[in-house]
């Protein structure tokens, strides 16, 4: 429960900070709508020449697009700003202050910055997803809902662990932000089912950069095409990566000697 209480506190701070710049809301809303409109128009062009894409029907791809926005929103609300802040604080030595606080340092570091307007993408993504599902006309049964929730959680867990492992590298290397920028660039590949990509790229997007688990797998759960192996694999990978990132974080902290503060 500590995690929720802390997240709530940082969220309130984020809200108070951002409400001073209310015009940003309209700019970010405009940008998100533009991005969504672009993606939908791109789909319209592609689907004017075909009925299915790699076995996915148009509305199923739209549902995937919704998941893409939803997860992208979660990343930009808390994971990305917090991890960037963490890397910065290692370089500047201000991590010392975080370490002296009486809460778990990994937890504090992971929720330390909240970008309020990222919720726009979470909301838009959810709306797109629901509209696509309604248009598909299939009632999403209890089983699909549960597996989707599980795969969404696992996907976000995997992405978080991935970012934490990379960010923890900043205890040893100064410039790791570059790798995180590469992740964001690769993430756009997640707008399409990873099964479309040729083998080497598919493996890269699954295991090197876990884009597949963030978008394709939850969308597969939603559209009822998830097999048990992927389901169990995703959960196992999420647990393994979360534990590994925790262990790696501890090693890193032990190595950290304070830079300048």
């Amino acid at each position, binding site marked *: 429960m500590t995690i929720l209480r802390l997240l709530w506190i940082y969220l309130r701070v984020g809200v108070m900070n951002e409400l001073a710049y209310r015009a940003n809301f309209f*700019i970010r809303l*405009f*940008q998100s709508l*533009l*991005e969504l*409109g*672009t993606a939908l*128009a*791109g789909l319209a*062009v*592609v689907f*004017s*020449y*075909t009925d*299915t*894409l*790699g076995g996915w029907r148009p509305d199923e791809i739209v549902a995937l697009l919704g998941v893409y926005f939803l997860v992208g929103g979660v990343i930009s609300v808390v994971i990305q700003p917090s991890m960037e802040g963490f890397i910065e604080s290692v370089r500047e030595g201000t991590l010392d202050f975080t370490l002296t606080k009486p809460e778990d340092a990994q937890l504090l570091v992971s929720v330390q910055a909240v970008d309020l307007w990222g919720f726009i993408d979470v909301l838009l993504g959810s709306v797109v997803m629901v509209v696509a599902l309604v248009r598909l006309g299939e009632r999403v049964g209890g089983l699909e809902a549960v597996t989707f929730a599980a795969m969404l959680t696992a996907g976000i867990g995997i992405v978080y662990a991935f970012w934490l492992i990379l960010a923890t590298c900043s205890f040893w290397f100064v*410039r790791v932000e*570059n790798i995180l*920028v*590469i992740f964001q*660039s*690769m993430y*756009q*590949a997640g*707008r*399409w089912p990873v099964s*479309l*990509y*040729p083998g*080497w*790229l598919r493996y890269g997007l699954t295991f090197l950069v876990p884009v597949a688990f963030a978008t394709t797998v939850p969308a597969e759960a939603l559209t009822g095409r998830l097999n048990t192996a992927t389901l169990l694999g995703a959960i196992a990978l999420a647990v393994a990566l979360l534990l590994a990132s925790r262990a790696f974080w501890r090693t890193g902290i032990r190595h950290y000697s304070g830079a300048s503060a």
Partner: protein
Amino acid sequence: MSGLFDLYLQQFRTSLAAMLQYRAALVIWLIGQVLEPLIYLVVWTVVSKTQGGSVGGFTTGEFAAYFIGLMLVNHATYTWIMYEYEYRVRHGSLSFALLRPVHPIHSDIADNVSSKVVSLPGMLLAAVALGLVFRPTFHFVPWAVVAAVPALVLAFLLRFFIEWCLALAAFWMTRVNAINQTYFVAMLFLSGQVAPLELMPGWIQTIAAILPFRWMIAFPLELLLGRLTPIETIEGFAIQVAWIGLGWILMRTVWRAGVRAYAAVGG
């Protein structure tokens, strides 16, 4: 004239040295430049295979040729000048550029060209790798390949002028992200990056023929791939030259007004 030549030579030397220091940033930029055409190449390859090997006059191999070529033309013509100007105006570093006795656009062109020279080997490597994976089919027409060279140079100039004008919006606004994003969306659909323009609905093709976007990317590419008739080629060159003239006038006007509006923030 020789003064300007020496200036460019010196500027190339300094910016080459600077670019080589920021190799990581260039690699990231390169990944983005390869990934976007690659994604659409994958999508259209799948569509084409589902439809039995060709879609809207493009075979699977021709899609591969189109998107690999698109990647190279885009590399030859891109600029990141709008991000540069937002930073310069916001941090006031433009003040130093204004104190120099030559127009700042010369150093911008030199920077741009040297960044392309540094990243060209990586780009060619990516093109070869994609060629091996996706097996493109080319139908080169000798006269069209020759004509594609000046078309590419004009496309570079046109895109540079237009994006330099856009970058100057930073003089009046400090947050220009939304404007840049709108521009890139228009670019995406109207310059043939989502799909070859032939595959777009008719009304988009009409808009694309009027606005400058097609003439910055798609035109030299279609020419290179031998998809244009001689008449279309001559028309294309005429439109390119007309837009470059307009762009040049616009650039001068906006630059003069902008420098007057510029209030060095910080610096």
